[in-house]
């Protein structure tokens, strides 16, 4: 009995331990045309940067093992990590890596951590070659990609042999494939979280990674009208009912976990003030993604809210809209990087004189050209065999669970 117990305990322990091998099937809405690291998150496991931001947003050495300042040359010298091999088996030996010190080192490091600054080596046939734990085995633009394990990865071979990624999938398609067992990891709307959880499906919810905001265009809506819209929206009801308390209410561009100050931006509703500002009643063309159930529900609710202030939100096509409901990604844990990217997406001039992210954000939000509403997390449904999601390099498949 004792032997049996020991054998069983050993088997159980073995099952808990990560194991190598297997293929992970991932589906995503993203549609990268090229294997550019800045186009899809999963490509960060193919192409690495010299510096990486940790979970707290602080830079940490990655392909660059260290960096020193040479005042005489007015440059920062980065020392490449040793024994880093490219996907084609060649040793990565970049030689001297130096960056001018015309900017603070913090900003230089944040820039180097951007996906677009990842190390990409062109092979003889022109194809991009990286250093990450996975290599691109097959690439069909906007449709699918196959990543295979990089056996000579400097950080150690990933557990998975292969990751099959289907791109450009709509959420209902992803949900259907997941139900049919054709996918291991799919994106799910956060409004479906309760349903998945009630069914006992493993889900993963990230920290807020995108912002839901109203963006105004044109001159039909002036400052007063935009402020009236901002004051008329009942964020609490939307958060409690439509978002099922996922994410966070916010009047700021950056979520609390990145900026740390979002509570300083007002989110309270004031219908009477909004009605004063909106007098006489106006009609605005309002666009949102009607194919996205969550966006449609929130858009309709916003229209109901603004109607109380005398502002009629008439559904319209995106090209002719006065105001649109947008989901904007927060691409970095670094507040400066994230704000700069949001300013770029929103086509708002960057306030270069701002001393802090808070100051920059106050300037960006002046005039209510953008009204932040919520910060939303990403959510995935996982098959029962998937372990250690979302870090693909650490993901392994539990053999006890059937795919």
């Amino acid at each position: 009995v004792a032997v049996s117990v020991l054998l069983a305990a050993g088997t159980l322990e073995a099952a808990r331990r990560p194991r190598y091998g297997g293929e992970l099937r991932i589906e995503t809405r993203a549609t990268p045309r090229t294997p550019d690291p800045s186009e899809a998150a999963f490509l960060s496991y193919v192409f690495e940067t010299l510096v990486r931001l940790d979970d707290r947003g602080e830079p940490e050495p990655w392909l660059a093992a260290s960096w020193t300042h040479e005042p005489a040359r007015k440059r920062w010298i980065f020392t490449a990590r040793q024994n880093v091999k490219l996907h084609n088996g060649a040793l990565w030996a970049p030689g001297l890596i130096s960056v001018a010190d015309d900017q603070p080192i913090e900003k230089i490091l944040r820039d180097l951590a951007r996906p677009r600054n990842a190390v990409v080596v062109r092979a003889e046939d022109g194809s991009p070659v990286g250093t990450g734990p996975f290599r691109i085995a097959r690439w069909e633009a906007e449709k699918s990609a196959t990543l295979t394990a990089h056996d000579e990865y400097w950080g150690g071979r990933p557990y998975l042999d292969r990751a099959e990624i289907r791109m450009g999938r709509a959420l209902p398609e992803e949900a259907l494939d997941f139900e049919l067992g054709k996918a291991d990891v799919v994106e799910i709307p956060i409004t479906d979280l309760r349903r998945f959880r009630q069914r006992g499906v493993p889900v993963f919810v990230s920290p807020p990674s995108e912002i839901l905001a109203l963006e105004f265009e044109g001159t039909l809506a002036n400052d007063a009208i935009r402020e009236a819209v901002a004051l008329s929206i009942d964020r609490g009801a939307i958060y409690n009912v439509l978002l099922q308390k996922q994410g966070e209410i916010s009047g700021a561009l950056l979520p609390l976990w990145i900026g740390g100050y979002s509570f300083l931006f007002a989110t309270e509703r004031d219908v009477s003030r909004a009605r004063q500002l909106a007098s006489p009643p106006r009609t605005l063309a309002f666009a949102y993604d009607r194919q996205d159930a969550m966006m449609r529900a929130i858009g309709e609710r916003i229209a109901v809210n603004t109607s109380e202030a005398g502002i009629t939100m008439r559904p319209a096509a995106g090209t002719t809209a006065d105001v649109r409901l947008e989901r904007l990604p927060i691409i970095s844990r670094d507040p400066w990087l994230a704000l700069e990217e949001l300013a770029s997406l929103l086509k708002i001039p960057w306030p270069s004189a701002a001393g802090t992210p808070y100051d920059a954000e106050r300037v960006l939000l002046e005039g209510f050209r953008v009204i932040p509403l919520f910060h939303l997390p990403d959510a995935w449904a996982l098959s029962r065999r998937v372990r250690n999601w979302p870090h693909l390099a650490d993901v392994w498949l539990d053999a006890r669970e059937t795919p």
Partner: protein
Amino acid sequence: LTFRTKLLFISSFTVAGAVALVTGAVSVSTRRSFERIDRERREAMLDQFRRELDAQGQDVIRRVEKAAASPGVQQIAAGAAEYDRAQAEADAASLDFLDVLQPDLTIISSAHWPARFGYKNDWQIAPEDWNAADAFLTRIPQPEGSATALAAVRPAAGGKGYVAGARRLSPEFLKSLGLAPGLRALLWLAPHEVVDAKGGVRDPEKLDGLIAEVQRSGRQANGVVQWTADRSSSEAFVAFPLSRRGRLMGVLLAGASLREQIALERSILWTGVLVGGSGIAIGVLLGWWTTERITRPVERLAAGARAVAGGDWSTRVDVMSQDEIGELARAFNHMTEQLLEQRERAIQAERVAAWRELARRLAHELKNPLFPLQITVENLQRARHRPEAEFDEVFRESTSTLLAELANLNTIIGRFSDFAKMPRPQFESVDVNEIVRVVMKLHDARFRAGGRPKIEPELDLAAGELRISADGEQLRRALGNLVLNAMDAMPSGGTLRVRTARQDGGVRLEVSDTGQGLTQEECARLFTPYYTTKHHGTGLGLAIVQSVVSDHHGKISVASQPGLGAAFIIDLPGKQGDPL
């Protein structure tokens, strides 16, 4: 208009009027019958609508009760379901609208407008509806407007919530009415939707007037709508308001096509036109025949009368019948015979009178010279026995007297001879004004002659020349006679006025005096030859004037009253051959 035309018009109008009267009476009677039948049909349809509304209401109640008892609604009311769960419950109960409400009417979940959660329901639900047995009409707000629906409310989840469900009043509802041919039901739903059993209605704005009337009065209204330019597209509507608590939810329009009625009215009208036209044609023919028989003798009588007026007193008309017209013809013939006989008698009497007057005047004129002749001859006979010297003296004086009196006789006879020998006028273009001036100048010395009261001449001549075709010499003679006559009429002096004027293409010449005037009898006989009112003269002056005027195809008249003078008026034609 001629008598014949009048008679034709009268007969035509009589026929047309009678036909129009009959046609109108039949049309009105037909229209009233149709309207009565349509009214009865529409009222029957309204009754059917109310019954169908009740039945549909019961159906809505059953569906709402079913929804209220469903587990899904229980979960919603308990806050254990997603915000849009009501959609599934509405689908399951086949309800178009469904709100799951808290007791304070806050929407927990709305099927037709999920985004309205947390807001108050505004279906005009009153507390008495919550457990009411009946369904009710109400307007339900939607994102794209509002809809009229039949709603019911039932408690759910043991009173922790309520379910308000409704079904839209739609074309399908109207289909269930099973209308009679020619009848249809329309449903007007605020703000601008109009549907019938087939769906949307073309040109719904044509109903605006009727709807506005219902909205204004809140009562049933009637009206006729003509859908196209063709009048037969007209439809008579009765609009019945569907209200709740004073708010107009919709309007039921019961429409009856007027196509058959208008077709029948047109048929009656065309029949009337046909009958009337035929009647008028027959009436015209009959009238023509009748009037021909009546008016032809009358026309012959009229022609005979015109001939008599023209001087042909021997005119006779044919007597064609023995009726009133024939009697009239006989009377006409008798009249002309009598006129002819009387004229003959009058001419004879006038002729005798003229001869008597001539004899009297001749006797008078001849008697005066004859008496001295007789005395002179008798003196001469007595002087034959006297001494020769004395006889010579007497003889000389007597022969002188005889010669003088014989010359006087010769003059008298010459005057009569002149009148008998009035020459034919020689027409030429003359200026009447100029003739007047010449004549007045010739007599000017007489007007101012001493030893007698003064006569003041006055000329009132038309402007310019007054040219006519006339014999200037004869006119001067006639005018001179009139001037002399006027002077004789004013022994105590006065004013002699000569006036000329244009008159109907000719000339009017008027010579008036301020003398003693004439009596009616004197005026009547004034132009008779040898008639005179004076103690001297032959009575031929005015007769010569009349003769001249007559030869010029003119006309002379006199106007006078005793003591007020007299005026002789001569009208002469501008051209000879044109009688005045």
